[in-house]
């Protein structure tokens, strides 16, 4: 029915959707820039793969184990850094991503520089699609619930949110952990599709790609993240055929995309509706943001 080429593309698209939607929870809704999302995916991928290779468990269990370990690291990273200002999280996640990459490169259990091979192919389109839909629905419900509103309050003005009794650290860390666990699921799916894992698949460049998807679609908007993920999965593939000239500029394009989106249309392609799903920079922008920090 569907050629192997497109089948694979769709699987990748589903994985990217999970990544984008989960990052959106932290960066979009809570307004905390996380630059190490791919690292959580890597943790999930390697954990799931190691579990499958060592103990031959049902696929679902492997996915869950990947998700749990990613969540654990999310907690480990989130607790100390989310106490502080948002900028620190950005650098901390960047650094975290690097440490994880170096760790994977050097540990024996992850196969080191040689990577992990021979992972059985468990992922297929139905599983990937179901996971993606599940994550999307969960994210939607979360953002519309009290939890989501608290996150948005924190994003808009953390000091004020705390003043009305929102425990900002709790919400931020929770969002971070949830998002990490989703990335872990994406990682497990990734591992069992490509059957080979290699530390370079989960580096900074991949984190930036996911961030670009979120930014393109609209910060804070889960639909937007889905859109961004789909666009940035399919369009480069189609352009591949047109000319290699274009693909040379891919990272260049992502960089420019991030800057231009912030300058011109911060609410992304999918315009948020009135229930303020998106980042209304046009409205809020008038308020200066730095003086409330020097207490």
């Amino acid at each position: 029915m569907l050629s192997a080429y497109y089948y694979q593309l769709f699987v990748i698209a589903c994985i990217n959707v999970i990544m984008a939607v989960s990052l959106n929870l932290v960066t979009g809704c809570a307004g905390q820039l996380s630059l190490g999302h791919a690292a959580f995916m890597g943790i999930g991928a390697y954990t799931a793969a190691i579990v499958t290779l060592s103990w031959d468990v049902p696929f679902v269990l492997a996915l869950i184990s990947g998700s749990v370990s990613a969540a654990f690291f999310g907690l480990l990273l989130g607790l100390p850094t989310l106490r502080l200002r948002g900028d620190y999280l950005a650098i901390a996640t960047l650094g975290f991503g690097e440490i994880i990459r170096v760790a994977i490169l050097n540990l024996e259990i992850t196969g080191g520089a040689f990577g992990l091979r021979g992972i059985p192919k468990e992922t297929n389109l139905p599983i990937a699609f179901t996971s993606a839909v599940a994550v999307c629905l969960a994210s939607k419900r979360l953002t519309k619930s009290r939890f989501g509103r608290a996150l948005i309050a924190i994003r808009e003005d953390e000091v004020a949110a705390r003043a009305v009794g929102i425990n900002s650290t709790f919400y931020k860390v929770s969002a971070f952990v949830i998002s990490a666990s989703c990335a872990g699921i994406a990682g497990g799916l990734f591992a069992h599709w490509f059957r080979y894992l290699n530390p370079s698949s989960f580096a900074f460049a991949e984190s930036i790609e996911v961030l670009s998807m979120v930014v393109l679609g609209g910060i804070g908007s889960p639909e937007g993240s889905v859109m961004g993920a789909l666009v940035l999965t399919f369009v480069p593939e189609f352009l591949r055929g047109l000319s290699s000239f274009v693909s040379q500029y891919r990272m260049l394009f992502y960089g420019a995309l991030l800057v231009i989106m912030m300058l011109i249309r911060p609410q992304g392609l999918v315009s948020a509706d009135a229930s303020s799903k998106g980042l209304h920079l046009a409205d809020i922008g008038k308020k200066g943001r730095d003086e409330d920090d020097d207490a």
Partner: protein
Amino acid sequence: MQQIVNGLTLGSAYALIALGYTMVYGVLRLINFAHGEIYMIGAFIGLIVGQSCELPFSLILAIAMAGSSVCGVVLEGIAYRPLRDAPRLAALISAIGMSIFLENLALVIMGPQTRAFLIPFEVKQFRVGTLCVNSFDLLILVTCVVLMIGLYLLVHRTKIGKAMRAVAQDKDTARLMGIDVNHVIRVTFAVGSALAGAAGVLVGMNFNAVDPTMGTMPGLKGFVAAVLGGIGNIPGAVAGGVVLGVAEVMGVALLRSEWRDAIAFAILAIVLLVKPSGILGENLQEKV
């Protein structure tokens, strides 16, 4: 020990980069992710200038610093000024975007190949006991010290320096006092970028290698150094840079060399956990 010397030269490069980060953060509360790329651009400017004309080292350095200054100011104007009043997230994303854009622009224009950056004079080796030092190492240390003294004088003895300190303390009040905040910010970027460019030239020559990706790691580590010393704190940046350089080298010497890069980030983790304001910084916790 030899390793301490290694650490010092490495550390002074980190310190120069950290100074730029710290200055910009002090004034704008923004992490200029693209700072590492300015370092790389400075190295390339130095390389191109050095290759096309026969110039003495000091001139090459000066031109590279000037060029990086200009780049820094332009960067500020394009990516940061329009977002001055926007939520910090937007500025951070823009910063990351610029960093990636610049690095890849260099990759496209200059190509991925590493290029040789020859030192335009004889390098002499000295032996001091069991230590092996060469004249270029000394030059790096001397240049760094000179630049840092210059920066100190600028910040503490000139009018513009006073203005910079005022803006760092309280932007709006400074504006009320008649200070042209935009101008001050531009000068801050110019000076910080010049320092990064200088570091780029020094390191590029020292290792005889310049390539478009050379800015990423030093940029990150420079930032860690700035945080270590207390972000926003100028002597802190220097201290942080030196400590980081020595720690990294000692880490390799005493532990395993595979984990070299992780050391910098481990230090970051420890600092954030234990004393986020850094060695010399004040407590910057948000209070309600």
